[in-house]
């Protein structure tokens, strides 16, 4: 048995420890927002947070999640109460096919946690997921907007 917290909820899973966390999330816990893209940590479609760090879950064995806090796109925000990153994505109308977008939003949220006001260089260096529809241009605008929304929400609270 491996136990961890996922989106604030305690969870125990009975699974081979080497199983990629992605498949535990998708197929055992039936949360489909985290996507499979390549299985080799090369595209970032499966990006989630483990203890606040962006992790490519297709290449992260579930045993390493023991005792940790996991956040997926389902735990980032909701339609009624979106995370600032999601709000920025909505404002800039970023998604096209949408498949890679949860991974990008998770990567962005993790970046903003560490670096609330990233420069273009910071964005280039840290947001290295793959989007085939080519939404990078709008994503960059959304990342900057999310940083601004974050700053506002911190000021307001």
């Amino acid at each position: 048995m491996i136990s961890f917290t996922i989106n604030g909820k305690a969870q125990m899973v009975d699974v081979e420890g080497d199983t990629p966390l992605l498949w535990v999330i998708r197929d055992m816990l039936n949360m489909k927002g985290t996507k499979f893209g390549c299985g080799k940590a090369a595209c970032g479609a499966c990006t989630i947070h483990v203890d606040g760090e962006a992790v490519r879950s297709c290449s992260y064995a579930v045993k390493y999640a023991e005792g940790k806090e996991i956040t997926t796109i389902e735990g980032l925000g909701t339609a009624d109460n979106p995370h600032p990153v999601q709000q920025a994505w909505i404002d800039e109308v970023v998604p096209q096919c949408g498949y890679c977008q949860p991974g990008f939003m998770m990567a962005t949220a993790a970046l903003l946690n560490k670096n609330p006001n990233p420069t273009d260089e910071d964005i280039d260096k840290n947001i290295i997921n793959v989007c085939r529809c080519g939404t990078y241009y709008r994503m960059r605008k959304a990342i900057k907007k999310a940083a601004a929304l974050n700053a506002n929400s911190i000021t307001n609270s």
Partner: protein
Amino acid sequence: MGISRRKFVVRTLLGGTGVMLGAAYLGRNSIRRSIYDMMENPDMLSYMGDTSNPLMWFEITNDNKVVLHSPKVEMGQGSFTSMVQMAAEELEMDISQISIVHAETATGNIDGMSTGGSTTTAGFWQPLRELAATMREMLKVEGAKKLGAEASSVVASKGTISAGGKTLTYGEIVDGVTDWEIPETPALKDPKDFKFIGQPVARVDLIDKVVGTPMFGMDATMPDMLYGAVVRPDRIGAKYKSSDISKAQGMPGVIKIVQEPDFVGVVATSIVEAENAKKAIIVDWQIDRSWQTKDIEDAIQVGKGDKMIIQKVGDADGKLEDGGEGIITAEYRSPIGAHAQLEPNGALAHVESDKATIIMSTQVIQLTRSEVAKRLGLDEEKVNLVPTYLGGGFGRRLHTPNAVQAAVLSKAVGKPVKCFFNRKEEFQKDTFRPPTHHQLKAKLDANGNIEALEHSFASGDVMFNAAMVPAIAGTILGADIGATRGARIQYGNIPHHRAVSWHSELPFATSWWRSLGLLANTFAIESFMDELAVSAGKDPIQFRLDHIQDDEAGRRLKAVIESARDKAGYQDTANGKSAMGFACSTDAGTPCAHVAEVTVSGKEIKVNKVTCTIDPGYAVNPDQVKAQSEGCIIMGLSASMYERMYVEDGQLRPTIYGPYKMALMRDAPKEIDVEIINGTGKPGAVGEPPLGPIGAAIANAVFRITGQRLREMPLTLA
């Protein structure tokens, strides 16, 4: 308004009897060339399905919502949004009152064609608005009955019908109605009264896609679902002979190993177990030869294979005879390109004794249903294909036979089975963009104008091997009309010009890749136009304008060129290590012009900004026209600057992102400025045309900075 029962005309394309019966007649070259012209018209490639029964399209629920059942799929191109805009307009409802879903084939609303070719919004412009208007009139008739009023006196607004101070919602009106009267198609709204059409309405799938809830093919589940994996060869041309399954049997989680005449697969209780067991199956493949990149390049050469003259004006051949004086020539190449869409191909299949359900992302709903039915020996009506959102289309899902394998596995175990490609298989079994080779020849007259221009190009299959196009099309047309996209000279003022297609088959599948031949053909022609402008000592934009004919297509092309030029403030000279590059193309009736602002440092090429003007005829949703233009620019930049599959010892490589280098965030232009011209008032193609000019625009800028003319994609500085 008169009431009668009527049928709309079903719009069809290839395979229609007109083309079939006319085969001999159409074999004549001049007629063939007029067919190529026709095929570039998006109306010709749009839709084959119902346009007569609004009840098959619009489901009106008691809570006064309309569910629009779309026979076309949403793959990012935004057509769900434009469809809702068009429907809302004529239904007299708000956008928020309409939701849109993919139509299962069981609903009967099936498109016999495909979703592709930048045709959905353009193709539905007339029929979908007519269907919605008809539905509205039907609601008026029934509403009037329930209100005790004359149908002619009721008013439809925001999902309600009112008369004499009384109001019923559409939801209330449909309650209990079983026999609808279908009126004559009412007149459509005057564009000046549009409330939603022409507006930058937010994507209808936006919120779902931001919170992670939309279902893609790979997200589908069913109770008791198992996971399948099929062993696939990593060698080109490998044919399945037999397999040794002894090691795989009994591995953890394995339910069954399924040996078929043409493949072997495994069904297990998880993806990981299925993939592990798959690796333990030893397959004996028949492999006839080991291919290398050089073999492929040798095969794709102008002068090799089947020749077809696809455009002929004047006597370009005579004017450009080998050895003639003052003839300028250049050769261009483009490599094998992968789709590299993020969601792999696959399907969830549930086969029961006399029926089957397939849930998947595909661009060819009817073809896939038909292939599954055939393999299972079922009537097509017994197979319900349930389409989902596509995690990228780009032409990759214009043949999706994985559904057949998933169905075979499901049948073998009597339970639902989900079976997908892994990423290596996705890269190796892709239906690639074919490599191309181009020879350009031209002659300038004494004034530095082009007297004669010829574009000869060689390509592998684009349309010829496509499952959805009848084989006879190739025989009739001679040239592969996918490969010829963008291959013809668009400068009608050149007195002598022609385009010649050479076609060779390759040992692996090549097919549709977003914009088909447009990217490579435009790269070659528009780079060469730049070479000619430089030779003539002229401004490259004015040089182009001088060669464009004065008809509607010419005027629209000129308008986008001038717009992009002015918006970007085009300068023909480098500023240190930076310069602008220009290129333009017309694809499927949509002209588009790009100015790329490029910086070179060392051997690195960086695109800082792209200014684009596109004339799609009419933008139903200007924001999504911009989004498609931005996406095309970035995808085209990626293909032009970084991407290349190669063949080594019989294998297509690379097999993973990273080694298959693509544009990432850092490579995408920080500014993309898209201007839209509504040149005709009728929507045309959007999702592919802006891909055309980007490669040449970048290369033309690089030439101004470095003096190096890059004639091969991916663009690489010496």
